[in-house]
């Protein structure tokens, strides 16, 4: 346990590090019981507990009936067949799907360039101003979402009340909340890259813009791409900010619909369908993110696991 802690920190990429593995093999006397079957069984139980409920929930979104516990045959009823209560035909559910996609696209398009530029600038600019705002950026990354959401709610209902609660407020809040992903991921990448590529380019006569466009941005492409994936999927799953900043059915995304319809009563299988659509969206983003990251980092050292943990925000 100390061995794991000392050698590996923080990231599951480090969980994947082979160091601990060889150590166990080299010193078998440290584990006199052989393979820890009890621990393995426990881990499988944990995984079952963590994932089987989701599988059941997805399964029952295809149930041809209202029950969540008695299978009545397969149907697309709750997705589009039912003329009233399906996700496709219920205007509120339909609007929620569109709103989630809209918020994800808008937030990603604004937050990623903003965060990447911030990371590049703050990495080179020395002084109290960049140091302060670098701290503010990290603070925005660790602050509990409710406290941030409350501040957004108050600023849009008092000081900036010209921005009414609704899509604009949601996008402004989500960008502020998510801009730390590109800012932090790109800064981490800049630190690993070091200054030598840029210095070489500058020695060969490239000016600032050329260094940025021809050298830095291509080298940062995997990090920028990974942060875009993180922001996009983060917005799909976001709840607190959009809950506090949405104002009507037209600007309420899927997560808030599931929450507000469910509590206090059974929302029925259409909600399971809505949740399954969210899940499918996230999975599509993960697959795109994984394949894209692997393509962008071709020729670099690193495994599929590194790609996976990076786009999960743990790399």
């Amino acid at each position: 346990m100390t061995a794991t802690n000392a050698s590996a920190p923080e990231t599951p990429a480090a969980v994947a590090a082979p160091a601990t593995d060889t150590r166990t093999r080299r010193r078998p006397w440290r584990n006199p019981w052989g393979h820890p079957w009890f621990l393995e069984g426990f881990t499988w139980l944990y995984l079952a507990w963590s994932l089987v409920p989701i599988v059941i929930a997805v399964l029952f979104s295809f149930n041809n009936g209202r029950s969540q516990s008695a299978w009545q045959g397969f149907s697309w009823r709750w997705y589009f067949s039912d003329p009233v209560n399906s996700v496709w035909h219920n205007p509120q559910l339909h609007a929620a799907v569109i709103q989630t996609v809209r918020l994800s696209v808008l937030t990603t398009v604004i937050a990623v360039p903003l965060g990447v530029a911030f990371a590049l600038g703050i990495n080179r600019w020395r002084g109290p101003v960049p140091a302060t705002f670098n701290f503010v950026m990290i603070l925005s990354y660790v602050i509990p979402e409710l406290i941030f959401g409350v501040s957004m709610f108050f600023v849009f209902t008092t000081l900036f009340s010209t921005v009414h609660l609704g899509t604009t407020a949601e996008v402004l809040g989500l960008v502020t909340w998510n801009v730390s992903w590109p800012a932090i991921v790109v800064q981490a990448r800049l630190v690993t890259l070091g200054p030598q590529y840029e210095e070489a380019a500058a020695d060969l006569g490239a000016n600032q813009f050329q260094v940025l466009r021809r050298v830095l941005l291509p080298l940062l492409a995997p990090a920028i791409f990974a942060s875009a994936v993180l922001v996009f999927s983060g917005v799909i799953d976001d709840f607190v900010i959009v809950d506090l900043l949405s104002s009507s059915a037209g600007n309420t995304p899927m997560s808030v619909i599931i929450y507000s319809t469910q509590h206090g009563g059974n929302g029925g299988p259409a909600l399971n369908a809505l949740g399954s659509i969210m899940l499918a969206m996230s999975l599509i983003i993960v697959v795109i993110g994984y394949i894209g990251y692997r393509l962008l980092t071709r020729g670099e050292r690193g495994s599929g696991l590194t790609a996976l943990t990076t786009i999960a925000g743990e790399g």
Partner: protein
Amino acid sequence: MRKRKNVFWVALAAPGIIWLAILFVVPFYAVLSIAMGKLNQLYEAPVAVWNPVSWSSSNVINVWRDLFGSVSFAGPILVRTIVYVALASLLCLVIGYPAAYFVARFAGRRKGLFLVLLIAPFWISYMMRMLAWIDLLSTGGYVNKALGWVGISPVNWLGGNSATVVFGLVYGYIPYLILVQVILTGLLITVLPMLGDYYTNQMLSGAASTSMIGNLIQGQLGTPGLEAQGAVLSMLLLLVLLIPMIYYVIATNREAAR
């Protein structure tokens, strides 16, 4: 030359800095100004006082009385929050640590598979994960069915059951702890969001008898006459969490630098 170089990087950082200033720093000042502000008696709307010289402590005193006074209605909520979060974090640790330990040390060639399965909950919407348990825990759900097979009569899990709320918090936040290998930072990454959680509680219980500090704050937003108190509470929560937050930042930076 040196100067022009500097201007270039300043220009790159500027949009992000301005954005954070207007939409992160100013909003917090707004909350502070409302917390230290006055109440418009006629509309029961909070009046922000922007000048610190004329700040009033009446809202803070009201909240303090609610929390610690002799007839404090918020006192039990505070105690409940601490108990729930402490229990849930402890359970997260007891359940999560063995699993993380196994995958880190003994998973061998199947490490990839285990990691994918451990990370999977991150990609599943929190609300979907809660919805799944609402289905299972409902009166006719699989949990009560399973209890029925061993002769136990159905339990009312939803609608005010403390155990369900703690269970929901564990289920909701344990993936974060599992992926963080250092115990203290792992605990922080579960404790910080749990203290601001109102949705887990609201979805799995919704009863006043289980409400936490997050529910209190969320309920005060948009409620005439109480908004300023919501502002005070969220500022107090921030104040309490500031030290753990800064510790978390320093600890993760130290780990990353290694």
